[in-house]
């Protein structure tokens, strides 16, 4: 008989709370930072900045303490396993880099203080919930949450027309994508009758063994639903036909937020896509790899061609991130244990090189160069040797030159695709990465070999103390650059530790 409170007792709730401790820590700190706005003196100080770093640090500690456990909380709405641990750490690192980068930008551009940091923390929270979510409701809610924080942060530079325009564009297009996502979720629910991803997985494996005649109509509904769902997620991953918002939003937002969107949002979207792909798409409803295959090729090709033509470094990075999303997708297409762990490895490598490159863009931006134009980068290599050298390493890593993490990631992902027999795809990816190397190396050659004409453009900040860093650049930015640099090189030279980490976390996908 009907008695809900006995079906869902309090004992289960306790277990559920254990599964979301890292998220709870972030929520608490987000609210503390937000409440600092009540006190003018506190909110003008550096407290919000330090508090958000402490919050992220605590969250990492809790993730590490809980790692190895598999907990399913809140009646299967949310879970915690090794797969989540990997992505939690990636997201928290991305958030940490964003907070570290933000300090200088905040001081130079005079942005309002505490809400900014709390919004970043809320964004991290949304990503963590998205990664951990196990049901279609949670996926939709957390993607909405993530989008809303991203819209606000994109339009945060008030009075800047580009920023407001970018936020509006992102908002309108993002709402369409969310509509597609929820429409797809409705179709999936209508076809299977379950909201929980694992229940859907079991249901599908049940009917693929059992009598298909009884469930004949399900496949059509499910295929429509999954395609619509893919549209919603591909928008967040900025894959080719749904990429239109990427360059504008990346250019309009302040640079730390651009880095946050390029690393955090994309990684979270890939994480949930990987889980949904593994659980639902890969059961034989229709061959989704054929669709993903085309999307991957188009993203890579379009991203690289557009990046070649763009003179602005932030737009270039935006287009290159579209191309990188194409490479990452190859790992999912390649599939299997090897392909998934390759995808994870690539994503980890990707956040370090992208965050590092954006940190250096901020350094140059702060030096009154206002040098988002690539031509202004000429001759920088001799004036700021360390910064330029690390920028070169990040760019080489993005291009996929050996001895860097980007090469290992690409190698891993492409070899999984070869294993699964996608030779043509791999050939195109290789051609693309050779093509991409051109515009990455063009920046490097610009930095070290200035052409005669552009050598006239002198740095305005001549009197600053030129050493490693000059002007208003603080230690935090350099710390970010150095950490990213160490990991970019370490993952290229000695990747085994990180590969083991990725393998361990992929293992838990199979252990349902």
């Amino acid at each position, binding site marked *: 008989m*009907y008695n809900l409170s006995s079906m869902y007792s309090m004992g289960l709730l306790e277990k559920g709370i254990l599964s979301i401790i890292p998220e709870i820590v972030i929520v608490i700190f987000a609210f503390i930072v937000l409440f600092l706005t009540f006190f003018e003196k506190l909110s003008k100080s550096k407290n919000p900045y330090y508090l958000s770093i402490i919050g992220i640090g605590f969250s990492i500690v809790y993730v590490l303490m809980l790692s190895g456990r598999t907990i399913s909380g809140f009646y299967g709405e949310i879970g915690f396993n090794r797969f989540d641990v990997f992505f939690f750490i990636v997201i928290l690192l991305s958030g940490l880099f964003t907070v570290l980068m933000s300090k200088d930008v905040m001081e130079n551009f005079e942005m309002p203080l505490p809400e900014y940091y709390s919004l970043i923390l809320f964004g991290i929270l949304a990503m963590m919930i998205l990664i951990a979510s196990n049901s279609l*409701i949670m996926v939709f809610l957390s993607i909405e949450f993530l989008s809303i924080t991203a819209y606000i942060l994109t339009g945060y530079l008030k009075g800047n027309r580009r920023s407001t325009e970018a936020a509006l564009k992102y908002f309108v297009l993002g709402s369409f994508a969310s509509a597609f996502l929820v429409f797809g979720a409705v179709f999936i629910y209508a076809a299977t009758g379950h909201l929980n991803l694992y229940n859907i997985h079991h249901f599908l494996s049940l009917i693929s063994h059992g009598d298909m005649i009884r469930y004949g109509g399900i496949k059509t509904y499910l295929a429509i639903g999954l395609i619509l769902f893919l549209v919603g997620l591909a928008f967040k991953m900025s894959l080719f036909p749904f990429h239109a918002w990427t360059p504008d939003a990346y250019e309009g937002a302040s640079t730390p937020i651009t880095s946050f969107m390029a690393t955090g949002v994309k990684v979270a979207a890939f994480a949930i896509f990987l889980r949904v792909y593994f659980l639902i798409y890969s059961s034989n409803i229709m061959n989704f790899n054929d669709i993903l295959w085309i999307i991957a090729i188009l993203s890579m090709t379009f991203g690289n061609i557009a990046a070649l033509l763009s003179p602005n470094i932030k737009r270039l990075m935006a287009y290159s991130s579209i191309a990188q999303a194409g490479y990452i997708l190859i790992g999912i297409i390649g599939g299997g244990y090897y392909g998934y762990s390759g995808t994870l490895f690539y994503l980890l490598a990707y956040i370090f090189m992208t965050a590092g490159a954006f940190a250096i863009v901020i350094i140059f931006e702060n030096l009154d160069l206002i040098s988002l134009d690539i031509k202004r980068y000429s001759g920088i290599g001799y004036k700021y040797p360390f910064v330029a050298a690390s920028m070169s390493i990040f760019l080489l890593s993005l291009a996929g030159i050996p001895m860097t993490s980007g090469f290992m990631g690409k190698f891993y992902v492409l070899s999984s695709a070869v294993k699964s027999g996608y030779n043509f795809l791999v050939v195109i990816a290789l051609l693309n990465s050779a093509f991409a190397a051109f515009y990455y190396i063009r920046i490097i050659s610009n930095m070290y070999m200035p052409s005669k004409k552009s050598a006239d453009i002198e740095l305005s900040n001549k009197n600053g103390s030129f050493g490693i860093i000059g002007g208003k650049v603080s230690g935090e930015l350099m710390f970010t650059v150095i950490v990213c640099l160490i990991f970019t090189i370490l993952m290229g030279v000695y990747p085994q530790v990180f590969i083991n980490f990725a393998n361990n976390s992929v293992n838990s996908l199979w252990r349902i």
Partner: protein
Amino acid sequence: MEILFYVFSFIAIFSALMVVTMRNPLTSALYLILCFFAIAGFYIILNMQFLAVMQILVYAGAIMVLVVLVIMLLNLSDIKSFKSNLHQVFIGILISVIMFAEIFFYISKGIQKKPVGIFTHALIKKIGNTQIIGEFLFTKYIFPFEIASILLFVAIIGAYLFAKKKF
């Protein structure tokens, strides 16, 4: 009963098209209300009284007041020129007809369709839709419920930040 579905969907699609094509903003706002009422009709057909009431209360009530208010603030002078419009009277009549139809079908108990799962038709009739939804929100779906509250809170912060004049 199947005819009702087509009637409601025709009205919904028609009014949605009219929202976009009408030149007078107030008329298109009224058409939007008509669209919401027609959608509430679907919920009645599906035997979801709670959703139907929420649809009318929240969308046709609260959100539309906001929309009309914004229209008033934007171009007050334009609205005076086409004030009384046969169109608007027509929509008003149509809305009240649909409202009465919905109440009628709700009282005459809608279609006898068998819901699946533990909540049988008799049970739903006994305890009511609203109570079941409420209990599920606070037991099985407690986590999405809480997350939705934080989401709305962040959205409020965003609205406040964009509306604020200067920092």
